[in-house]
C-alpha cells in the first residue's frame, strides 16, 4: 500500500496529477523526500518510551513552583513486553503558601502510589490487578490530594499525569497544566481540558479564545489539588498518537507559545532534548512570565 502512494508522488507516469487552481504553486517532491519523515523510524525491539524534559524558572519569577516526574520502563524477552511510562507535571499556586511544596508533594505522591500498586504486576506479569487502571489513577490523585493538604495546607497545585501501558495512555488531570497529542507531520490537539473559569466561558461561547488569552481572570481555576473537599479529577484513556509525541507542560509554556508553534517546535527538533530546549527558549523569548515545565515523550516504533 505504502509503495503505491509514494510511487504516485514521485510522478510516475501512470496517472496525471490533478490540477488545483488556488494560486498556490507547488513543487513535486524530490526522490526520497517523501520517505524522509519515516526515514528516522528504525524498528527496535522491544518498544520503549523515550523522553526529554526541561524546566526553566522563567524571566519574571524568582522561584520555581513547578514540579515534574518522568519514568520509562522497558522490558524485553520472550514474555509479554509492553513498555511502561509515567510522566507528571504539577504547577504550584503562586500567591498561596508553599506552592513548590504542593507541586512536589503532589507529583511524588501520585507517582509513588501508582508505582507501588503497579509493582506486583511488574515483578510478575501474570498477577491479576484488582483495580482498573483508571481507578488506580483516581486513587493516586486522591492520595496526592491527601498528602498536599497535610504537607502544605492552604496551598494548591495543578496535576497532570500520563500513565502509559503499551499503546494506552491513561491521563489523570486537575487544573490548567496540559497534555497534548502531537502528530509527526506537525499537527496536534490538546488532550486535556483546562479547569479554568475562562475555559468555561469559552466553551459556552461567551468569549473567544483570543479574549480568553488576555482575560484578567485567566488564572482563576475552579479545581485544583489541595483545594476543595470533593475532588473530581478528569480521568480518561486514549491511544498514544501514532508515530507521534505526547507533550505535558505547565501554563508557563502554553499560555505564551501558541499551539501551532508548540507542535512545530517539537516535530522539527533533532531529538527530544533539543525539543525541550526550543520549547523553553520560545517561552522565555515571549517574556517568560511564569515557571516553564515540559516533558516530551515518544514511543519507538
Amino acid at each position, binding site marked *: 500500500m505504502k509503495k503505491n502512494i509514494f510511487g504516485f508522488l514521485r510522478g510516475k507516469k501512470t496517472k496525471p496529477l490533478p490540477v488545483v487552481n488556488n494560486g498556490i504553486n507547488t513543487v513535486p517532491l524530490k526522490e526520497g523526500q517523501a520517505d524522509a519523515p519515516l526515514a528516522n523510524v528504525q524498528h527496535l525491539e522491544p518498544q520503549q518510551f523515550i523522553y526529554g524534559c526541561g524546566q526553566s524558572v522563567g524571566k519574571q519569577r524568582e522561584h520555581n513552583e513547578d514540579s515534574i516526574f518522568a519514568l520509562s520502563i522497558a522490558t524485553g524477552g520472550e514474555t*509479554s513486553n*509492553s513498555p511502561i511510562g509515567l510522566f507528571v507535571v504539577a*504547577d504550584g*499556586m*503562586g*500567591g*498561596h503558601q508553599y506552592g513548590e511544596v504542593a507541586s512536589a508533594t503532589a507529583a511524588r505522591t501520585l507517582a509513588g502510589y501508582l508505582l507501588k500498586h503497579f509493582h506486583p*504486576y511488574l515483578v510478575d*506479569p501474570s498477577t*491479576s*490487578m484488582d*483495580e*482498573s*487502571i*483508571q*481507578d488506580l489513577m483516581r486513587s493516586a490523585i486522591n492520595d496526592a490530594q491527601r498528602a498536599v493538604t497535610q504537607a502544605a495546607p492552604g496551598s*494548591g497545585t495543578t496535576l497532570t499525569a500520563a500513565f502509559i*501501558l*503499551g*499503546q*494506552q495512555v*491513561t491521563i489523570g488531570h486537575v487544573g*490548567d497544566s496540559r497534555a497534548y497529542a502531537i502528530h509527526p507531520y506537525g499537527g496536534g490537539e490538546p488532550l486535556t481540558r483546562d*479547569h479554568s*473559569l*475562562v475555559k*468555561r*466561558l469559552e466553551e*459556552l461561547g*461567551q*468569549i473567544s479564545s483570543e*479574549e480568553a488569552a488576555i*482575560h*484578567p*481572570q485567566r*488564572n*482563576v*481555576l*475552579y*479545581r*485544583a489539588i489541595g*483545594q*476543595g*473537599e*470533593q475532588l473530581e479529577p*478528569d*480521568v*480518561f*484513556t*486514549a*491511544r498514544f498518537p501514532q508515530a507521534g509525541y505526547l507533550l505535558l507542560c505547565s501554563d508557563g509554556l502554553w499560555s505564551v507559545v501558541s499551539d501551532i508553534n508548540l507542535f512545530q517546535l517539537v516535530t522539527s527538533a533533532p531529538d527530544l532534548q533539543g525539543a525541550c530546549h526550543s520549547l523553553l527558549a520560545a517561552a522565555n523569548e515571549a517574556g517568560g512570565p511564569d515557571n516553564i515545565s515540559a516533558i516530551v515523550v515518544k514511543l519507538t516504533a
Partner: protein
Amino acid sequence: MNRYVIQDIIGVGGMGSVYLARDQHFPNVVKLVAVKEMINHAPDPLVRKTIVQNFEREANILATLNHSSIPRIYDYFSASNRSYLTIEFINGKDLEAIINETPGFLTEQRVLVWAIELCDVLNYLHNHKPDPIIFRDMKPSNVMVNLQDHIVLVDFGIAKRFLVGQKGTMIGTEGYSPPEQYRGEAGPLADIYALGATLHHTLTRRDPRLEPPFSFGERPLRKINPSVSAELEAVINTALQYNPEDRFQSAESMKDALAAAGRKTGVLNRVGATTASIKSESTIKPLWAFQSEDEIRGAPLYHGGSVFIGSYDHNLYSINAADGTLRWKFATDGGIVTRPAIYEDNIFIGSEDKLLQVGGARTGKIAWTYYTEGCVRSSPRIAEGHVFFGSDDNHIHAVNLLSGRAVWKFETAAPVRSTPFVTQDMVYAGCENGDFYCIDFRGELKWHYKAKMAVTSSPTVMDGVVYFSSLDGTLYALDARAGWVIWRFRMGKGSISSPCAMNGLIYVGSADGNIYAIDVHTSKETWRYKTDHQVGSSPVIYKDALYCGSADGNLYSLEQQTGRLRWKFATKGPITGSPLVNDDIVYTGSIDHFLYALLA
C-alpha cells in the same frame, strides 16, 4: 467613636469583622446595630484614599434606600486604615446557614415566597433613580431570613471596594455570577441570573461554587429534588440562561412568572409531566412479519436479498428480505439460538444438535458438517479463512474453511456461548464461568482474565481495547494486547448483551432494564434508557440511531447521541436476539415466534 459599644462578633469576612454593638446615643433603649468593619489593605496611600472615598460615596447612596428588605444604614466613618458601616441589625439567619442546618429539602412554598420577595427588592433597586443599583452579589449567604420569615438583603458588596486585585492563579469562583460579569458587563440581568442560581442552590442543596462554573444545566432541579414543580423549575431555568437576552428582562416579569407558578402549584398532588411525545405504538407497522414454529431467540443475518434466521423450532430459514416470503428452510436437530454467518455464498449455522453446518446460501443444501460434543450456542465468526465459534463442550473451535477440519480446539473452563471476536491475529472470547481469553491464531493462550461471573455476551475490540460485559453486572474495558483492566463500568444487574462501540461511545444492555451509552475514554455514563424489563439483546447502531430489543417485548429505536426515544415497536413476546439493520430496514426476531421487518 465611643458611640458604639461592641457586644459580640456576629461574623468574620475576608475584609474584616461584623460586630453587634449597642448604640449609646439611645441610652434609655437598647438599640442594637451591626457594625461592619472593613480593613483597607492598599499599600499605596493614594489608592487607600480613593478606596475610602468610593466607599463613602456608595454608603451615601445606600443610606437613601427605603425598602422592607433592605437594612437601614445609619452611619459610616473611617479611622486609620479601617472603615465602618453601621447598619440595622437583622435578627435571623442567612439562607446559607438555613440550607446547611435543615436536614432535607426546603419546601417549595417557603422558597417561592422568598423568591417573590427577592424579585420585589431587586425591582426596587433596578428602578432606582437616577441610576439603577445592581446588587451584584446575590447568593444565599447575603440573604437573611428574619424572625418573621421575611427576606432581607445584606452586604451590598460595598466591601468589594477593598479587594485589591490579586495576582497569579486564584482558586474558587463565585458560582452565582453570570458569564457576562466576567466580561465586566454586569447589568440588572446579572442579578436575575444570580437570583436563579441562589434559588437553584436553595432547592437542590448543591452549592454552585463547588461545581464547575456555568454547569447548572448538568444538575436539573427536578432530577435532584423531584418535589419541585415543573412550573417553578421552568421559571428558574429561564433566569439561569447564559445569554442575558434569554432571561426575564426585568425582576418584575420574573416576579409575575413566580406568582403564576405559585397559583398553579396550589394543587397538592402533581402528576409528573410525561417526557417528549412519542409516536404511539399503533403507528409503527412492520413491513412484514414471518412466523416460525417456535421462539426466535437469535439474531438475523442479511445477504444477497435474503434474511437468514434460526428458530427454536430447529429450522434455519432463508426469507426474502423484501416481502418476507420463505425461500427455503433447513432443519437441524436442535434449537437454534445463534446468528448465522456467511462466507462466499455459504451459510454457517450452529445448533443445539451440537453441529456447525455449512450450506449454500441460495439453496439451503448442506455442503459440510462439523461435529462438536456440546450444544452450539455461540454464533460463528469468520475471519482469515477460518470459522471460529464456541460450544458447550468447553472448547473454542477454529475450523479451516476449505478443509472443514479443526485447526485447533482451545479448551476453556466452561461452555463458550459468546461469539469470538477476531482482530489482528487474536481471538477473544469469554465463557460461562467468567474466564475471558485472548488466543493467538495458533491456538496459544496470550492472556486470560477472570470476571466474577459468566461472560455470555460477545466481546468487541476497538482502538486497541477489548470490551465485554459479564453476568457480574460489569462492562469491562481491557487492553487488547496485554489484558490489563483499563476501566470497569458497573451496571445495576448482570448483562448478557454484547456491547457495540461507535464514535467514542459504547452501548450495552443489562438485566436491570437499562440500555447504557458509556464514553469509551472516560468510562462515564453519557446516557441511559430505561425499558420495562431485562435487556438481553445487544444494541446495534445504524446511521444516527441505536436499535435494541428488551424482554418487555419492545424493539426500541433511540437517538445514538442522546438516548432519546425515536420510536418503539411492540411484539408479543420478549426480544432476546439482537436486531439487524440493512438498507434502512431493521429486522428483529421475538419469542412470539415472529421475525419482523420495520422501517429504520
